[in-house]
């Protein structure tokens, strides 16, 4: 059972209300594919991922980044029940997509960095702690159904 403080709930809701899901999602996924190039293994049919410029300009990546952010939104709206909310997504990532769960952490680190750039000095240490706690819960829930 995850216990959220009032500060953590307010912080997570506040951060996501300020994010442009398309811009942040696309930028985050692109950054992940550039910084951790082995993650490209899951995007074989996404077209040109040949270099950073290609990845940053790739519309399929941008679209998929948005999908991911909307997926996170479901966790924001169900903070007291993330494990159950993500049960199906976890099965999908394990059984159908065969994603190594270590990749969830890589993507969440990239998201932290993109959000930090957007929020600037508002992204204080306390805010970062709340955000990373939320992402850790998400990552754990996504890995839950793997066997």
């Amino acid at each position: 059972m995850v216990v959220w403080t009032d500060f953590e709930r307010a912080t997570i809701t506040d951060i996501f209300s300020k994010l442009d899901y398309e811009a942040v999602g696309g930028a985050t996924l692109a950054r992940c594919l550039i910084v951790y190039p082995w993650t490209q293994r899951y995007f074989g049919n996404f077209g040109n991922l040949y270099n950073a410029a290609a990845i940053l300009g790739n519309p399929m990546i941008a679209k998929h980044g948005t999908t991911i952010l909307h997926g996170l939104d479901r966790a924001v709206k169900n903070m007291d029940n993330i494990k159950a909310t993500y049960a199906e997504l976890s099965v999908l990532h394990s059984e159908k997509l065969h994603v190594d769960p270590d990749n969830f952490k890589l993507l969440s680190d990239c998201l932290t960095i993109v959000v930090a750039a957007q929020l600037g000095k508002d992204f204080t240490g306390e805010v970062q702690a709340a955000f990373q706690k939320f992402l850790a819960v998400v990552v754990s829930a996504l890995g839950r159904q793997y066997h």
Partner: protein
Amino acid sequence: MSLSAKDKDTVKVFWAKVADKVEEVGSDALSRMLAVYPQTKTYFSHWKDLSPGSAPVNKHGKTVMLGVGQAVACIDDLNAGLLTLSELHAFTLRVDPANFKILSHCLLVVLSIKFPNDFTPEVHVSLDKFLAALSRALSEKYR
């Protein structure tokens, strides 16, 4: 995952921009680490004040960043250049090397905040590789 010539250039060019904000960046990175990863506070039980912006945090943040600067200067042979620091961390400080990754992440977050336009994905990957190489060199003498 060794550093290419391009990685080294990217790191040197970017670090030149950070050079005059060394205390600010170091203090912020360290404060964040203590807030986001509370287990790291165990290494600083001898400090009176662990709050962000406190004197010991500022001083130590600057010390750590000067160490990173030293690594940038010896980027062509990190093991040789960081030998003394590695011995210090191995035999005296005995910091668990897992924490190097944690501090590296916090440093990248600070750089992303302070240099939003310069900290592009290409700069990010070179810096991430550099910090990983630095961490390896720092762990050289552990066992």
